[in-house]
Each structure stands twice: as structure tokens, then as C-alpha cells.
């Protein structure tokens, strides 16, 4: 099974996590919302699959290109 890394586009922090480990996601589904410069930044699934790992928690700081979660498909 291939593992897809879902990465942050922004420097910011984790605001809300909308899915749980084990959830099946479709391409484009909202996984979590980051906050960056007072903007809510949606993180969407780049492909369909199962959310195998969520590597961040609400209020964690995140960096550009940091891996947020993994999807297996």
C-alpha cells in the first residue's frame, strides 16, 4: 500500500482536526484546518484512501512542508 504524505502549505498552527485516524477520505475531503496569519487554511486530502496517521494536534505549530498526516491507498 502506498503512503501519501499530506503536508502543510503554511507556517502557522493547527486549529481544528476534522477527521480521525482510520477514517476513509475521498480526494478533496477536509482533514484539518490550520491557522496562518489570521486566515483559516484548509488541509484537504490529495487523494482517496484511509487516514493512517495524524502527526499533529490542535495548537501545535507547523512549518511549511511539514508532514501533517499520512493517507494509505
Amino acid at each position: 500500500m502506498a503512503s501519501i504524505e499530506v503536508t502543510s502549505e503554511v507556517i502557522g498552527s493547527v486549529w481544528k482536526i476534522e477527521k480521525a485516524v482510520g477514517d476513509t477520505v475521498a480526494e478533496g475531503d477536509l482533514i484539518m484546518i490550520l491557522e496562518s496569519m489570521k486566515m483559516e487554511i484548509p488541509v484537504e486530502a490529495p487523494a482517496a484512501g484511509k487516514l493512517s496517521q495524524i502527526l499533529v494536534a490542535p495548537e501545535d505549530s507547523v512549518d511549511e512542508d511539514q508532514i501533517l498526516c499520512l493517507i494509505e491507498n
Partner: protein
Amino acid sequence: MNFEELLNDLQAREDRARAMGGPDRLARRDAQGVLNARSRIDAFIDSDSWTETGLLAVSSMVPEDHDKTPADGKVAGFAKVDGRMVGLISNDFTTKGGSSSATNMKKIGHVKRVATQRGFPLVFLGESSGARMPDNMGARGMGNNLGHDPGQYVRQRETPWAAAVLGQCYGSSAWYACLADFTVMRRGAVMAVASPGLASMAIGQDIEAEDLGGWKLHSQVSGLVDRVVDTDEEALAEINTFLSYMPSHCNEVPPRAAVPAGSDAGAARIEDILPTDRKRGYDVRKIINCLADLDSFFEFKPKFGRTCVTGLARLDGRTVGFLASNPMGKAGALDVAGCEKATRFTVLCDSFNIPLILLVDTPGFVIGIEGERQKAPGKIMNFMQALQMCTVPKLSVIMRKSYGQAYLNMGGGRNSDDVAAWPTAEISFMDPDYATEIVTWGQPADDARKREIRQQMENDASAYGLAEIFAVQSVIPPSATRRYLIQQLEIHELRPTGGIGQHRMGAWPTTY
């Protein structure tokens, strides 16, 4: 010798030249999955279209190198790519590290002159250890090798240049990568002024190649590279893609392509992508993909200056350049890297008769010490200079926010030939609720100061305020934007010159 012997001798010389650095070195590259100078050419060009120049060139500097420098280490010539002529330089790393010396620099100069004067693109496949030693050492070495061509490094954008960083690139391969309009780099390749070995010697500390000039540095920090790939074949395919958008020379319009079926379907999806909450971000690439002909968007520098998105695309088959605020990047607030990227892209489009389409959603500029240390006001002015010197059609669509000076940088007022706004547009000098926080981001500012800033702001920010005074030409729903852009492109065709701009920025510096 009789005639037959002469011909056999010629054939033997050609065969030796084509053998490059020999079977062992070529086999090692093959085992690593890396192409060589000649297999790169074969993979890139139309079959049977190769005309080599200087096959029998060798070192003219060191007698002992006569038999060790087939084609003097750089393969040069002319070929067709998708039926159009290109000039090509392909470095042979198996021959003296593809290093530069008198004969091979003459070859590069020749191909460059011919491509420039005869009006076709130039492609550099870079992999070179830099200046050849000992050829360039000493006063005679310097005088014999260098400085013969007073125009060697002048770039006036007469024809498009593309470069690939396909291994170690020091010296000429690095210079041409910087001078090119489109530069693609293979992961694992290195580009720098000098090699890590030399740099380490110079400063007395070990320097890692990736830190000195790896793909992350160049695609994310220096911004000298437009796209990153994993293989030579991918790099060549990307150069091919780039060329497909471009004219052969600056006095030609770009080629017009067929419009893929389904290209009109995307515009209706914009209203689903654009969030109703003005605090919610979105990836502007999705909007570009809804507007452009299907699958035609080719992004430049995706991980540099992320506050805006730049790339070539097609609308109704015509090449256009998109320059779009990206709310995913610093809320769309323009920073120094964003200004640099936007400026360079504007110069590219203007130089090759490509209309520029600006999509606007920006709360202003990022302010603060880091930006000032990088000359932010100067970079903002560079961007304005480029935009205002453009003579290709400029179309601007205000999607959501357009604030302050950035309103001008993104084509507001008469900085575009036509400006439309969506009903979601907000235009003002400064947004009271929002930009106060963003533009003081990273600076200490207490509540009293923030209230003071807010009080200075205007109240009515809607698009109709601009429409009523003809400061935008129309207010349109997002779903009508593709059709609007296509109509405007037809209206603004440069008919008196057959679509050709004035190219006032042809000599704009390639890095600044």
C-alpha cells in the same frame, strides 16, 4: 592516403568523438539511471533531426588532452523539437567533467549567436565542473580562454532559453541556468558558484553539497530554479512542455493550441471553491484550473514566494500567464520573494507576447524587519516598474481582497487594460477587521494602537464603489470569468503589430 582511406579516417574520428569518455564511464552513469550528453539529446529531440556542430573539436590548450577531449566535452548543435528548430548545448561530464575551455566556449558562442540571430530557442543541458584546469590558469590561460565575446552574458530575450540542472553545475552550467527563462533541476543535482570541495577549502570547513546548492535551496530559498524533477527524462519533458507555450522568437506570437473538450465546464465550479467565509483560505490553483483550458496550467516556482502563484496556461488555445494571489501563502500578503517571482514572471510574459492575467486576493504587503532587510520597498517598486512597462495585454480580476499599494501591484486602476471584480471583492486602503492583524504580524502592537489603525480606514469597500466611478470596468459572477477573459483577450489583441509587444524589458536582469 587514397580517397577511401580519407573517408575511413574521417569516420574513425567521428566515432571516437561520439564515444565521449568511453564505455566504462558511460556504463557507470547508466547504472545510476542517469543519461549522458548524447542520450539526453536523443531523448529530447524529434528523431532524425540532429545536426551537430563541432563534433571534431578537441582541446586547443593542452597537447596531452588532444585525444582525451572528444567534442571538447560539450556536445553542440541544432535539432527540431515538436517540429520547431532549437539550439542545443549538452554537457559531457564523462569528458574532463564537461569543463569549459577555449574550443567548447567557441561552440557555445556559435550556437548562441545562431539561435539568437536566426530566431529560435536555446536549450542548455547543464552538468559541468566549471573552468577546465590547467587550461585557465595563469595570465596566458586567462587571456586565451576568456573574454573574447563582449556579449557573452548579455541576455536580451530575443528567443526563449531553457536550462536543466542535471548533475554538478558550476561555472558555465550555473551561469546559463540563471540566464534562462525556464530552469528545471533534478533532485540530487547541485548548482553553485563553485564546488563544495572548493568552497570547503576556501573557508576551511566542510560544506555539504545539498546545503551549498541542492534542489531545496534553489527551488525554495534562492528561487533560481522553476521546477524540480526526479529524472533526466522528466527534466527534458518539462523543457518540452515549457517550449510548447512559447513563440520561437520575440517577434512571433505563441503557438495557438486546440482547446480540449470540457474546458468550459470548470468556471461553474468556482463558486463551490470560493469560501463564503472571508477568513477561510483556498488554493488559488484550483481557481486557475477552473478558468484555464483543461490541464493547461504549468506552474513556475511553486515553493518559492508562495504568496502568489505564477505559471503559463492557455485560454481558448492562446498562451497566457497567470499571476494570482494565493491565500494559502501568508494570507495572500505579498512578501519580497512573492514580488521577485511576480516581477520575473511579468518580464517573461511581456518579452514573449504572452498576455498577463492577474487574479487578486491580497490584504496588502507583509511588513516587518525581515522584509526590510531584504529591501522590501525596492522590490515592490521593481514589481510596479515591470507591470507598468508591460506592453502585452494585462487583465485583472479582483476576486476578494485588494488593499493598499498591492491593489496597484496586482493591476488595479490603469495598471491593467481591463479590470473586473467579483461581487465578493473588497477594495480599500486597509481592511479594518483583518489587515490590522496581518500587516502587524510579527510586530508588537497593543490594542490601543490597533484601534488607532482601524479608525483611519474607509468604510465602504464593495466592488460597486469602483464600478460606479469606472475604476473597474465590470462586476461579474465568478462563473462568467472564463468567458470574460476570453472576450477581453480578443478585444485586446495587439492588432497593429500582429500581436507583438514592444519588449521594453527584454534586457531586464535575470536575477536581482
